């Protein structure tokens, strides 16, 4: 197990470097150089002397690799620099916004489980029944509609027409329901499909036939044998999806005026607040690595072949 985790880390960690290096190169390659962006953001007139001063201050006159390693060295000590706009440390800004985005994403994960698990399961067990047709119609629409539009439909229905939930903003737990559902719908659709096809595929396996030949109850055959095996790819894919959902919150936060990372990054993009963008990317990369690692550990817990490794015992 430990060797497996180390192996996974070795393949995941380069993502952090790859992504941050790419961001770094992009920022320094474009026509608008960081110094000018800084001047614009802070409303100082870009005189030649001022630009030179800024360049020297941020080390922008140094060669690119050196700049990257300086940034990396500081980042490892949790110093991500200061925002051009607010002059606050980037880390503080991220710390401030991240929890609410994480909350939103976790609630969306809750919806995902609540929707995809029963829907995928039922539509596989009752294949070609009404339940199956309805759930497939749901997955088709939920996978094809723009999430921001779905969000507004939900607001229209639950907040405005029925008056059950608040329209937007952050506050009570009721505020969380619609944004997280909006964030979850797209993924709920694909996970319903994944689970359904996984169960159907597993039901064809010889071990299911053997389970039935041993007289096991249908409940046990499907609920234990088919489901457990079908969850494996779901758990695997989930490590990837978590990062996607966290990123996808950009749109959802925009719709529901949810104060989180998404709004922070949208503003930073408009202001070309490069340290913020760089910090955001680094944070996403770390979250990405962690969530994938967690998914890997979860699948190792489910699957003994990963956990124990392939050390076959002879006859």
């Amino acid at each position, binding site marked *: 197990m430990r060797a497996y985790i180390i192996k996974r880390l070795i393949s995941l960690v380069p993502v952090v470097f790859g992504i941050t290096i790419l961001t770094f190169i992009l920022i320094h390659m474009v026509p608008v150089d960081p110094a000018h962006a800084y001047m614009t953001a802070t409303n100082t007139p870009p005189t030649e002397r001022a630009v030179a001063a800024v360049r020297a201050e941020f080390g922008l006159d140094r060669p690119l690799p050196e700049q990257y390693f300086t940034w990396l060295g500081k980042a490892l000590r949790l110093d991500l620099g200061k925002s051009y706009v607010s002059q606050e440390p980037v880390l503080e800004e991220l710390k401030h916004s991240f929890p609410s985005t994480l909350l939103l994403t976790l609630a969306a994960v809750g919806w995902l489980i609540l929707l995809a698990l029963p829907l995928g399961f039922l539509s596989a067990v009752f294949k070609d029944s009404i339940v199956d047709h309805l759930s497939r119609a749901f997955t088709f629409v939920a996978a094809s509609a723009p999430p921001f539009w779905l969000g507004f439909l939900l607001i229209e229905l639950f907040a405005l027409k029925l008056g059950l939930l608040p329209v937007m903003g952050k506050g009570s737990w009721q505020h969380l329901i619609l944004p997280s559902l909006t964030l979850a719908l797209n993924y709920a659709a694909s996970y319903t499909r994944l689970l359904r096809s996984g169960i159907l595929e597993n039901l064809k396996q010889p*071990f299911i036939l*053997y*389970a039935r030949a041993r007289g096991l109850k249908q409940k046990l055959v499907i609920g234990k044998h088919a489901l457990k*095996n079908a969850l494996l790819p779901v758990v695997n894919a989930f490590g990837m999806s978590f990062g996607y959902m966290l990123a996808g919150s950009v749109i959802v936060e925009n719709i529901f005026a949810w104060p989180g990372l998404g709004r922070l990054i949208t503003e930073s993009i408009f202001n070309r607040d490069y340290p913020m963008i760089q910090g955001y990317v680094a944070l996403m990369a770390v979250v990405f690595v962690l969530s994938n690692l967690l998914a890997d550990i979860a699948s190792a817990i489910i699957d003994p*072949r990963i956990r124990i490794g392939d050390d*076959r015992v002879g006859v």
Partner: protein
Amino acid sequence: MIKEKVMDVEGLCVSLLHRQREISVVRDVSFCLEEGKVLGLIGESGCGKSITCLSLLGLLEKDRWKVEGSVRLKGKELPYLNREKIRRLRGSSVAMVMQNPISSFNPLLTVGQHFTETIRTHKEVTRREAGQIAVEMLLKLNLSEPEKVMGQYPFQLSGGMLQRVMIAIALFMCPHVLIADEPTTSLDVTVQYQILKELAELRDHYRTAMLLVSHDLGVIAQMADEVAVMYGGYVVEQAPSREIFCNPMHPYTRGLMKSRPAFTKDRLNVLEGYPPSLMKRSRGCPFYERCRCARKDCLEFDMKETGATGGHSVRCLLYAGEEEVKMDACS
């Protein structure tokens, strides 16, 4: 000792429902299994052996398969239409050993979990008691360190060990009938031999009636008291083991015997051609195209039994009526 009929199969017909068509897979199969005896079912792949086994257990999905005929267990008709009743019989009265032990176990569950879940399905015992029963059974199958095996996952065990576990799981309820579908095909020859030996001992010990399916004449010769030869969904010949090996009648059976490698330097006779495809089966004898003694009227043959003397039955026009056939003429 009086032979007791344990399972009596009569006129079993199975067809696959495919695009509004019915494709016959098993046709008019009848046999009976006796206490402590082994019926060997032999034939090439695709001849309907496995489907016969699955239909006996009521394991064929009702919306894809049509099963007709009568199967009596200890004189009582098996309740195929009652899902719950037939489920209770599976694994307790009629047990099965599957073809491929490695893919038959769920890779995510331990051997012990497989065993105890089966025991607790059929017996009201605690998890712990189930564990004890399982360990005892594994010991009977000569598995060393049964406690350790119980905690292991299928991929940690060899095919032979898994097959032993499977046999142990099949026998803990002392079933009346054990159906073994190619139990040794996927195993090494040495392991094959051990498993067969153990199966034979257990049959003697539990007096279980056994249906042993194989395409391997050696296995059948070693184990079976009675042999049924299947071809194209029909049992084309059935006789006591000794009789069928000494005096095969159906041209297909004779072909099978000839294609068996022996310790001689003679050239191996191979049955030429392939079994007919399921889709193409039509009227007449299914062996017609490969048969060396085929005649025109074979195509009109209704595949009824044509000769049955001394427990030796055969379905072939060669043995229809009084017509004397020279055995060697067509071999």
